[in-house]
């Protein structure tokens, strides 16, 4: 029987031999040879949607030999917003973070440009819609990659029965379940909406359009302003709010506000959802989340809800669109892996799976992706999402555009448009006084 004697000298010799051999052979190729990557995704509210995203990421990580960590961060209670702000200050945290609407531009200086990724992605997928480009390319460079999860349209979600019964509008004749919009859809204008709002208000089913300061409110009134050609600040940064178009939009808003719920001024992003689900309202502007909750909590309401494009105004049919992005921090230690993952998630196959997992809620930012079959199949009522993705006659918009990014962000987040309307409707301001107030606010937003 041989006995091994391990002396201190032989141990040191052995250890140094292993170290030298290791150094000479280079880094060992193990399961995670290409390093680590940490990702913070938006926590999707649709059950199961996160699982598909996780699966897609894990497939990529296994192939690329990356040690991948995924966190799902909810947007409720501003958790995602606070995480982004904290990581930006600390210059530490995830490699990739989900950012919505204005955030890629707000943090542009702290984000890794992704022009190289987008060049390949655009070559394969074709162009994005204009809102995606306006928000994702704030300084001539792509600062983030458009994300499918969370990107959404905010057109009307109408009650088929109530519109027909009280306003005489057959929404299915305009936007049928089995085909594209019919010529009758040309009649779907803001004036038609105003007339319908009055009739439904009289019948006890007011339209649920809020006048608060949160995103849903701002998006709806922002699309109305665009439809009237009203802009607050132009693309060069000039204040142009004092215009006939703004006056016309405000006149119209004043008329419409008279037929909205009395407390619409205090509405947040959940108020319109509750309004529709309760059966009290004939129309709201919202992605299909209200309908999806109604499917569970009030199926008798859900089966009468139809999603369709926004009404047309003097300057066109503007559909509110809110994109999400995936951004890479400039301090990320593994940018090449981060870019590879984002390219993987931007393929048509990945986007189609993500849209299906979100039950049609997500609208990818690439125009060529608007033909996924999920939207035709979802229901009840079957086809309710058929007209939810952008249609060719719609101009996608975001409130406060086309102002330069840093100014538009303030206009949007401080709800300057809805506050102007609230000042007139509730504060008793004249239209000119409200415009003068907005001018003073906008001058403040110009601060560098």
């Amino acid at each position, binding site marked *: 029987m041989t006995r091994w004697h391990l002396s201190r000298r032989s141990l040191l010799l052995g250890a140094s031999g292993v170290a030298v051999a290791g150094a000479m052979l280079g880094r060992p190729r193990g399961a995670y040879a290409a390093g680590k990557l940490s990702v913070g995704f938006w926590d999707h509210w649709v059950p199961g949607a996160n699982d598909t995203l996780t699966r897609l990421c894990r497939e990529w990580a296994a192939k690329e030999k990356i040690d991948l960590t995924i966190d799902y961060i909810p947007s409720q209670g501003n958790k995602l917003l606070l995480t982004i702000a904290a990581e930006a200050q600390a210059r530490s945290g995830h490699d990739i973070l989900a950012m919505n609407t204005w955030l890629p531009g707000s943090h542009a200086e702290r984000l890794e440009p992704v022009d190289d990724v987008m060049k390949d992605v655009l070559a394969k997928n074709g162009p994005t819609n204009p809102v995606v480009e306006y928000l994702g390319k704030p300084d001539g460079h792509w600062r983030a990659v458009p994300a499918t999860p969370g990107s959404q349209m905010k057109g009307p979600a109408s009650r088929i029965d109530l519109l027909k019964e009280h306003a005489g509008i057959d929404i299915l004749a305009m936007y049928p379940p089995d085909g594209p919009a019919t010529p009758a859809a040309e009649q779907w204008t803001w004036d038609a909406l105003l007339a319908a709002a009055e009739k439904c208000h009289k019948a006890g089913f007011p339209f649920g359009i809020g006048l*608060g300061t949160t995103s849903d409110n701002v998006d709806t009134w922002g699309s109305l302003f665009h439809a009237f050609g009203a802009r607050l600040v132009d693309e060069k940064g000039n204040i142009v709010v004092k215009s006939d178009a703004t006056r016309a939009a405000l006149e119209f808003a004043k008329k419409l506000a008279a037929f909205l719920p009395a*407390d619409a001024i205090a509405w947040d992003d959940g108020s319109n959802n509750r309004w529709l689900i*309760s059966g009290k309202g004939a129309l709201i502007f919202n992605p299909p989340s209200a309908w999806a909750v109604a499917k569970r909590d009030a199926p008798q309401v859900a089966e009468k809800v139809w999603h369709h494009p926004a009404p047309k105004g003097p300057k066109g049919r503007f559909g509110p669109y809110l994109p999400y992005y995936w951004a890479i921090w400039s301090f990320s230690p593994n940018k090449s892996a981060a870019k590879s993952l984002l390219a993987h998630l931007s393929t048509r196959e990945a986007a189609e799976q993500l849209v299906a997992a979100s039950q049609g809620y997500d609208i990818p930012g690439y125009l060529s992706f608007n033909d996924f079959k999920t939207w035709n199949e979802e229901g009840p009522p079957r086809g309710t999402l058929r007209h939810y993705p952008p249609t060719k006659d719609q101009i996608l918009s975001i409130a406060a555009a086309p102002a330069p990014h*840093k100014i538009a962000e303030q206009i949007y987040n401080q709800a300057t448009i809805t*506050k102007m309307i609230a*000042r007139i409707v*509730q504060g008793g301001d004249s239209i000119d006084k409200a415009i003068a107030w907005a001018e003073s606010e906008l001058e403040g937003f110009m*601060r560098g």
Partner: protein
Amino acid sequence: MAQAAAIGGALEERGASRGGGLARRRARIAFLLCLPLILLVLALVIYPAFYSLHLATLNKSMTRFVGLANFAFLFKRETFWMVVEQSVIFAVGAVVFKALIGFVLAHLVHRLPQRGQRAWRGMLLVPWVIPPAMSTLVWWWMYEPSYSALNWLLAGMGFAPVPWLGDPYWARFAVILVNVWYGAPFFMIMYLAALKSVPAELYESAEIDGANAWQKLIYVTLPMLRNIIAITVLFSLIVTFANFDIVRILTAGGPRDMTHVFATWAFKLGIESNDIPLGACVSLFMFPILGIAAVFILRDVHRRSRELAGVAA
């Protein structure tokens, strides 16, 4: 004799030096015991305070030093002065009502028989014990624009619904009411403790002198409670001025920014609108207001303590 005196002196000296050593050792132990808290305060209060001062001197993109330009900008904004006014209305209004209600409740509980007093004290403390974010959510459901439970009750009694959160003035009332509901028990418990420490002989002497209940309150109770009233008012003023959760949950500053207080507006500007330097400026604006209030109130408390010490001597 001289030798005895010398020995006595030496012992005294040694005793004094031993006493001094003990005191030093105690001070060292006390410092070490306090050290974790000092470090915590440094890390979580002092550092962020100085960091926010630094942030307040940067431009919107946080790339350039702009000195006091952000403050100068704020002073020119209409909304800023509206927020100052609202913060004062909110804090002063809420503290006055909290103090009054707490004072009345403390007297009522003090007068209860000892046996049932504990149960009442416990019940009255419930609003203060529940985390405010949670209780404010319940209040929000009662005020909720479309399905207000309070309006349901009013409708049942034949009254018109009240736009609790939709009308700026009702909304201001609503946020103050919740703050009073939450904070009054704190005042009650502080005043109750103070009432219990007022010597019964003072009331007996006043009674012998023919003082009625009102005179006993004015000439005995109030002077004896003056310090605790001042300190609770100061403490509550600081906490109420810095309030965030109640306004954020109930109105988020609306309608038309007419319920914003410093903290909610700072959050709106700094975090939601990505203008962190301006948000830092707004939050720093609370500091001088509260600092001035603290100096006046604490000076009064100090003077009063010295007066009482003089009377006792």
